[in-house]
């Protein structure tokens, strides 16, 4: 079966996951994002690429930051953005996901930005649109369950490339709750596709997926061992609900072992960069002295996220099903 993200010409028409996406497609997105990064500095912070297109933000799960950056990205491309507060609307009255989608297509939607707590929901929508010859409508996955968060993975890749230039000789550590993290999964797929020689995951056994090594990573349970000599450290958010189960003793205990402090970071390379997808739990997975310190690139990540989302939307919006002249 063909990759549902690509059309018959191998062009990106939906962005669902970085897994299986060819390296040249990923590089094209990162290259395209680069000039978009300067549009925020213009007098008129807009370009007319998606003028007249309707982008629907379908957030079945809350996320202020991701929804806002998608909204800004779409508006800087001159699209019309419609935010649907799904929790308070049709689904609570019993409408199915695909019925919701069909209704919005009937309102001439051009693109859906989808966040859902169920893994695979954006795939389901994209497959439905493809199967019903609605290939002019595009889907961007803004995070589905534990599966993928491809635009976050791309903005992380963009940030690493911006500060480190190339992936060819990097040692990257992803630290924390890899088990529940779609961010970690997307980033790891992207890093390995672009040829990063060493990707490490660091965390307690209870927060690492079984057989995580099959993703092409090296596993460490000790922070100092894992951080030694790293060029890039990506901290993951520890979701407070994990504390309620039997996975972790307490936030304080977690911080003692896996919280990123200046002391632990000292074993990484002197020019290491520290990243975090946000929102941060200061004093749980990261110390304020690191989060606000000289090695932190957490706020540039947010700015780059807008440019990367503009690149994704402008690439997929122009790639349609029927063959092009």
């Amino acid at each position: 079966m063909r990759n549902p993200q690509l059309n018959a010409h191998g062009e990106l028409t939906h962005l669902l996951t970085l897994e299986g996406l060819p390296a040249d497609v990923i590089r094209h997105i990162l290259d395209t994002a680069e000039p978009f990064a300067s549009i925020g500095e213009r007098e008129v912070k807009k370009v007319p690429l998606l003028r007249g297109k309707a982008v629907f933000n379908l957030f079945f799960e809350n996320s202020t930051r991701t929804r806002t950056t998608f909204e800004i990205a779409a508006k800087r491309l001159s699209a019309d953005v419609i935010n649907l507060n799904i929790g308070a609307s049709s689904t609570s009255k019993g409408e199915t996901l695909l019925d919701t989608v069909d209704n919005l297509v009937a309102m001439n939607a051009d693109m859906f930005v989808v966040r859902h707590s169920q893994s695979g929901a954006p795939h389901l929508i994209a497959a439905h649109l493809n199967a019903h010859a609605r290939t002019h409508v595009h889907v961007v996955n803004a995070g589905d369950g534990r599966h993928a968060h491809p635009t976050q993975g791309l903005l992380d890749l963009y940030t690493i490339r911006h500060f480190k230039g190339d992936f060819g000789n990097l040692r990257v550590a992803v630290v924390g709750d890899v088990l529940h993290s779609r961010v970690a999964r997307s980033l790891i797929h992207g890093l390995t596709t672009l040829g990063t020689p060493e990707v490490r995951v660091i965390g307690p056994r209870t927060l690492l997926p079984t057989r995580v090594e099959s993703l092409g990573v090296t596993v460490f349970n000790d922070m100092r061992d894992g951080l030694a000599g790293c060029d890039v450290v990506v901290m993951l958010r520890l979701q407070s609900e994990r504390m309620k189960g039997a996975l972790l003793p307490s936030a304080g205990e977690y911080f003692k072992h896996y919280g990123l402090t200046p002391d632990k970071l000292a074993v990484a390379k002197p020019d290491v960069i520290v990243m975090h997808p946000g929102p941060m739990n200061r004093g749980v997975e990261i110390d304020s002295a690191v989060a606000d310190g000289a090695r932190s690139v957490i706020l540039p990540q947010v700015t780059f996220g807008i440019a990367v989302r503009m690149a994704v939307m402008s690439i997929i919006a122009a790639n349609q099903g029927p063959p092009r002249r």
Partner: protein
Amino acid sequence: MSAPALPDLPDAEAALAALAARMRDAVAYDAAFVGIYSGGAWLAERLGAMVPGNHAVGYIDVSYYRDDYSTSGLKGGAKRTELAFDVDGGTIVLVDDVLYTGRSVRAAINELFDFGRPARIELAVLVDRGGRELPIQPDYVGVRLAVARDLSIELSKDPGGSLSLAVERRTGN
């Protein structure tokens, strides 16, 4: 059957000298030269040094303003538009290598207005090959050529910085 022979092209450096001579006494002393990537950018730099005056040089990439995005998509390798001077109230000379349909110039004018309101915009081109599809005319021209529609004229720059023109038959599309 062999295709008709390709036309002879003028020397690009001679055309540039002719263009600079026409601009020398006519362009405002403080006009900014804004080149449309990529050929126009090379020309704007050269003209900035050849035409007397205090000419800021800027660069514009019209990829986001083109009218063929919905059919052709984003061409790879868009560059950053860089206008490191105040567009508001200034005189700007747009510089391009080959003026043909006028669509790139239309896109460039639209983009300029997203940076401010220039007092005046002029257009300088190395080659005017005719074939306009929009009411756009150049103020300064290096050389005028009549070229068949199926031919494409490309400006290139060698490692030493000197410019040359080449003609190609359009392929495929």
